[in-house]
């Protein structure tokens, strides 16, 4: 059982001062094995805070990030799954599922995590799973109206991943979960 936190588009300090208090109290160091951040943190302080939750952090560059050294995309393996991360402003049209599928094929990953739209999404298509953890602070977005703060926690166990989405709606944290099972295909890396 490997726990992976996925979040992004915090836009601190430009659009939000901090994570919602209810989220902060849930995110305790030492419980998560990996962190995936889609980008737009935007400042070093946020980077350091997230690093304190878990040292194994994968960050990709958002268009407002202060640190220009984050990569545009990142791929890595956790257990049986190949994961890819990209902020998403590079994939046009923004939020378009078919274009994201193309990126998934390009990175050759099972799970693609992207952001930019500030809207939570998790769906399965032939090539794998695409997850958008939304905006962890509920930051303003020109793409999505009425953004609720949200983040995702993935539980990777063998060939199965359970995606928990935490959303702050009207002051309460609501949790939903989605199950994905990877079919052992002949093409995947051994």
């Amino acid at each position, binding site marked *: 059982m490997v726990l992976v936190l996925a979040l992004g588009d915090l836009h601190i300090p*430009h659009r939000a001062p901090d994570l919602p208090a209810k989220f902060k109290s849930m995110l305790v160091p030492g419980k998560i094995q990996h962190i995936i951040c889609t980008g737009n943190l935007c400042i070093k302080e946020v980077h350091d805070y997230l690093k304190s939750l878990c040292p194994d952090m994968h960050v990709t560059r958002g268009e407002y990030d202060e640190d220009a050294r984050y990569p545009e995309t990142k791929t890595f393996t956790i257990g049986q799954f190949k994961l890819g991360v990209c902020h998403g402003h590079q994939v046009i*049209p923004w939020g378009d599922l078919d274009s994201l599928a*193309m990126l998934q094929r*390009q990175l050759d990953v099972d799970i693609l995590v992207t952001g930019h739209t500030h809207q939570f999404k998790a769906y399965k298509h032939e090539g794998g799973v695409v997850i958008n953890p939304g905006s962890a602070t509920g930051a303003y977005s020109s*793409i999505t109206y009425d953004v609720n703060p949200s983040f995702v926690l993935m539980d990777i166990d063998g060939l199965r991943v359970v995606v928990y989405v935490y959303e702050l709606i009207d002051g309460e944290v609501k949790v939903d979960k989605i199950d994905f099972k990877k079919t052992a295909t002949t*093409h995947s890396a051994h």
Partner: protein
Amino acid sequence: MLHNDDPEEMLKIICTVRKHIMTGGPKRLPFTVPSLVFSALRLVRQLQGQDGDVIGGEVPATPKKIFQLLNQTIEALSTVPAPELALRLYLQCAEAASDCDLEPVAYEFFTQAFILYEEEIADSKAQFTAIHLIIGTLQRMNVFGIENRDTLTHKATGYSAKLLKKPDQCRAVYACSHLFWVDDQDGIKDGERVLLCLKRSLRIANAAQQMASATRGSSGPVTLFVEILNKYIYFFEKGNPQITSAAIQGLIELITTEMQSDSTTPDPASDAFFASTLRYIQFQKQKGGVMGEKYESVKV
């Protein structure tokens, strides 16, 4: 953060804060200006939901008035200078103006963004990101009439083709293809111009290969061709009549030949990308129905 439920009051707060932050120097402006801009954009959205204008006091709270303030506020970033940030903020305002149906205001914001791109953003990596942000925003705009939209898309495609590195040019040009196909109900669906963009990006990819051959003795990886193939597939599936299964077949054969050629640098990433693309086509064929029929003549 700034907040007040009454739009009148909120606007007064924004005006007052603005006066103060304008006196802040180049160190503070990159932090204070964006925060103010987004507070103002939130207010605009709030006012969008209400009917009619809220008139009263010396500064009536209307989206138009707020956009005027925003224009002046973002201008202040030129003193820092922070052209990349300013460009992003102009694009945000353009989108908000489009949502408010204010065509001239949106056009003005785009003009400002383009001016910054032309005059202030010289770094090739920054240009690549900036042109993608412009294309991405423009793709979503539905407020422009034909003339204005044409001018802006023409500018965007022009700049895309002028990026320094050929692979960057190729990618930006095929991104522009989306400017001519919007999936909405009354969105533009100009199949011919889409194909023109894709063909142009194909020519650029070819040129890039030849250049690599000439300068390094072996042609580069075929990634660009696989990317373009995926774009052909995208529009093929969306029903663009100009994209035929023959064209897709042609590209597949081109890539296969290139990959087998002695002079091509082997690249596991491109191989994997091509493989997953072919797998996708196979999957679509097996789906049967309308999609299966579309792909019938494509051999993988």
